[in-house]
């Protein structure tokens, strides 16, 4: 009897946690932003395809076949081994990313984007970065939930406050995001340079990874200590304090500023854009609706 009671409670909790209705605005905005980042990402691939993806590029098709085609799924394994196949995938992905931005056939577009991205990443895994991988996961999530009802060409109104979706659509992205921060903290806490506060000083002086050198007056030990510990603090807060209402927005704003700072000074721009996109799911839907209502009112 006791067990039944508990099981019932557990099922109720499960239902409430995953299947309660929440406004769909977050997931729709998340879809749109994912589409934008994917569009930019695809343009980058197109620009560099000659060296990174073409049959006779830096990682030749033959090497891909020997090294990766058995272990990783890629449509390029099944398409004719020529540069046209690469172009087909890249331009196909570009069109699909526009579908995501516009909210047309969003689930199907997201799933196809996942397949094209997987194919491209498998073709040359050496040139992939964390931003690529996170973006691929975002497409998997978006293929599981409808997200084209708002901020979309398919919908009659830009924002509809009555539209809802299941909570699990947000939860899966939220959990994914916090695991990224959690893992970062876990690994960083094992590094001596992170513990003694000199990590950012090292990283920001590696010219191959930086776009803009830090101004001279900031390039000193006390500032780097502050920067290193602030990074750790914000990443730590992103999987802990983010769940507490009072801390949510300060943590979110701090983390967005951290990512923007890294995007300005470092080469990991795509990754930063992707992470900022993922942070959208932490904004309270009601605040997002107010924001859009305010914008439309101002316009």
């Amino acid at each position, binding site marked *: 009897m006791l067990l039944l009671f508990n099981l019932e409670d557990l099922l109720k909790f499960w239902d409430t946690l995953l299947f309660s209705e929440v406004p769909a605005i977050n997931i729709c905005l998340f879809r749109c932003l994912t589409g934008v980042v994917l569009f930019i990402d695809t343009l980058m691939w197109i620009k560099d395809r000659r060296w990174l993806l073409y049959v006779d590029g830096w990682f030749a098709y033959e090497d891909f076949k020997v090294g990766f085609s058995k*272990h990783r799924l890629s449509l390029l394994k099944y398409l004719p081994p020529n540069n046209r196949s690469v172009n087909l995938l890249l331009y196909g992905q570009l069109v699909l990313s526009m579908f995501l931005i516009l909210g047309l056939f969003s689930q199907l577009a997201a799933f196809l984007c996942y397949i094209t991205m997987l194919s491209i990443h498998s073709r040359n895994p050496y040139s992939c970065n964390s931003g690529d991988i996170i973006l691929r996961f975002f497409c*998997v999530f978006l293929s599981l939930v409808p997200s084209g009802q708002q901020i979309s060409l398919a919908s009659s109104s830009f924002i509809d406050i009555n539209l809802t979706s299941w909570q699990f659509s947000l939860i899966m992205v939220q959990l994914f995001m916090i695991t990224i921060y959690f*893992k970062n903290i876990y690994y960083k806490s094992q590094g001596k340079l992170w513990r003694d506060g000199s990590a950012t000083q*090292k990283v920001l*002086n590696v010219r*191959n990874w930086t776009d803009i050198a830090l101004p001279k007056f900031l390039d000193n030990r006390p500032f780097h200590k502050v920067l290193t510990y602030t990074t750790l603090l914000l990443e730590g807060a992103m999987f802990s304090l983010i769940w507490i209402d009072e801390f949510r927005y300060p943590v979110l704003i701090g983390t967005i500023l951290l990512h923007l700072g890294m995007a300005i000074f470092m080469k990991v721009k795509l990754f930063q854009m992707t992470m900022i996109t993922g942070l959208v799911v932490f904004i309270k839907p009601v605040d997002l609706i107010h924001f859009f209502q305010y914008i439309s009112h101002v316009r």
Partner: protein
Amino acid sequence: MLFWDLPKTSFFKKIITSQNKFIYRFGLAYEFSLFSPVPVSQNFLFSFEIENVNGSVVLFDLNGYSMKGSYQHSKNVRYAKLHHHYLSATETFSKKSICCYVLQEYLKGPSAEVPKYIHIMRYCQKAPKSSPDKWSWRGGRIYTYTVPHS
């Protein structure tokens, strides 16, 4: 999905690892540790040397890597990742592939000799003790690809 991020020794990670084949095939696994636990901390340069059968040596530079002052800059993060792979001590598959590309491009040139080896050169930035403000680059060959039938 939560478990994919866990330390390799954890129980759940072991379960996931047992399903590695499927997870990797569908791109659902990743190692994610940006600049940790040990962040990148040294400046490196890399280039290629083509050693011909007649003993002459030709330098070869890749597109996407330019020099700004005395430092090598990657065009974007993808090139920075590749830079890292080409200079890493353990990775050899990508090194072999890029050497084949260098060979292919070299042979397209009108003045190409018969190549024997392609070397990847790595230079590390070191500060001489006597003059800490002046940097010098030290290094050498880290990988050699032997041209078949040379």
